[in-house]
């Protein structure tokens, strides 16, 4: 074996250092969320967790901070959840049929349709924010879930991924379906969607994280506290005003914001890795 050598501790040492670098900021946030405001202001804060963890989380969830007009973080979590789920489900729901249409049919303007969708791959929402904002305003989508999600659903990643997968479905399956008298609708429901199950799961994980972590668009399109997502809420809690930042609550909120996507990655690691690798092919 090439790998069996005496210096086997080197990789472990490097990896443990890497782990420490990855985990340290999160650990300090965890400690911060278990202290009181004055414990943190009395710098440097301790690196041992204090006894106020549940108290701080309860206050964040139930009452938020003064700077966020007392909007409870529980409501922000709900907004983030709705946004992430609608974006993930929405992208899959509009991409799967359109990829199916492009792959399994021949019709006029088919190439044009494909390219029109494909071009959206290139331009992230960040480079067209202000015109998109104006359109959202014209359609009175500001401060609505539709405004929060619809512009982010317009992206071609999922379509491209489904298209690639559909191209690998053997022609024999299509022929067999035709011989059995199944039309395109039956074939979609009975064959293509069941075959796509793992692709759908992988894509869902990636898109959920993408949706949950959105920042610039929610910042623009929501103004009322009741529509704030948790990632934006943290920004407002820190603010840049004169009042003291309540760091213990900010850190509790930060952990609450990180927890759902981290759980998704941990629990669905297999699909997550698959989705990440395939989405970039």
């Amino acid at each position, binding site marked *: 074996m090439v790998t069996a050598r005496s210096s086997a501790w080197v990789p472990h040492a490097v990896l443990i250092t890497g782990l420490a670098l990855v985990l340290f900021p999160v650990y300090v946030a965890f400690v911060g969320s278990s202290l009181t405001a004055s414990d943190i202001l009395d710098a440097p804060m301790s690196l041992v967790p204090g006894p106020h963890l549940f108290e701080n989380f309860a206050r964040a969830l139930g009452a938020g901070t003064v700077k966020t007009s007392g909007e409870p973080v529980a409501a922000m979590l709900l907004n983030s959840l709705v946004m992430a789920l609608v974006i993930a489900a929405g992208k899959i729901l509009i991409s799967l049929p359109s990829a199916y249409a492009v792959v399994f049919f021949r*019709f006029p303007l088919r190439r044009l349709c494909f390219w029109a969708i494909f071009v959206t791959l290139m331009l992230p929402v960040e480079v067209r924010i202000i015109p998109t904002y104006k359109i959202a305003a014209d359609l009175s989508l500001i401060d609505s879930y539709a405004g929060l999600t619809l512009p982010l659903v317009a992206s071609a990643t999922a379509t491209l991924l489904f298209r690639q997968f559909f191209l690998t479905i053997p022609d024999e399956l299509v022929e067999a379906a035709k011989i059995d008298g199944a039309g395109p609708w039956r074939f979609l429901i009975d064959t293509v969607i069941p075959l796509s199950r793992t692709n759908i799961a992988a894509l869902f994980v990636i898109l959920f994280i993408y949706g949950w972590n959105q920042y610039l668009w929610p910042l623009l399109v929501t103004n009322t506290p009741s529509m704030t997502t948790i990632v934006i809420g943290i920004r407002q809690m820190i603010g840049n005003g004169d009042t003291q930042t309540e760091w213990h609550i900010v850190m509790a909120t930060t952990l609450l914001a990180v927890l759902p996507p981290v759980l998704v990655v941990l629990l669905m690691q297999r699909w997550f890795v698959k989705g990440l690798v395939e989405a970039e092919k």
Partner: protein
Amino acid sequence: MERRVVFSGWLFPAFLLMPQLAVTLVFFFWPAAQAILQSMRREDAFGLSTQFVAAENFAAVLGDPFYLASAEVTLLFSVAVAVLALAAGLLLAVMADRVVRGAAVYKTVLLLPYAVAPAIAGVLWLFLFNPSIGIIAVGLRRLGIDWNYLLDADQAMLLVVLAAAWKQISYNFLFFLAGLQSIPASLLEASAIDGASPRRRFWTIVFPLLAPTSFFLLVVNIVYAFFDTFGIIHNVTQGGPAKATEILVYKVWYDGMVGLDLGSSAAQSVILMAIVIGLTAIQFRFIERRVHYA
């Protein structure tokens, strides 16, 4: 690539395509067209009249020393983020490829930053380095280093680079590890039998075979640093001090939403679109090459 066997008719596929085409049209083509149109117009101070000024906004943007400074900041920032995140990702992947015990644990933990929003990565690092309460900031000051990224441009840049690279390590690690694991063991064994040291094996076999992965990751990392790091900048430095960390995406947002200079902001958007299209084109050329390579 095309399928041989297909269904006939156009009504059903049109129906299937409709939702995506509608969303794309309303939220992609319309705003993109608006951006291009707006970039060639100027509004008076009260928004009462607009006049067509052709390329004047572009000339103004490209001749603006602040814009050029922001472009330079963006370049520095993205190269630093890409180099740091790629080097760390590669090092960790090479090491993870060598261990058997604990491999699953290492891999799982190293994937976690991917789940963290860039904006939140910024908050985590802000908490460590905040001049008055940050645990590392206080430690640095005890060591005699005058740490205050709110005043020192280099320190501000260092902090946003660290936060941005931290988040991107997961992604690079995953792709490098996949690349390493696809290198045939027989190649490495053959060169080991020929007496090549591990270091030599890495630089003569592993590294060249990883070149396609590295190039692909380089483009992905630069795109990430250009566009996905708005949240980090907005949370940590707000582009400061004195615009030292004002990357282009931040400037588009600031000039458009805070400065309300729509013509300039739109021209900047159009320039950014051109940059993305360029980067994407490079990436696709490369993917073509990778197919031949494999």
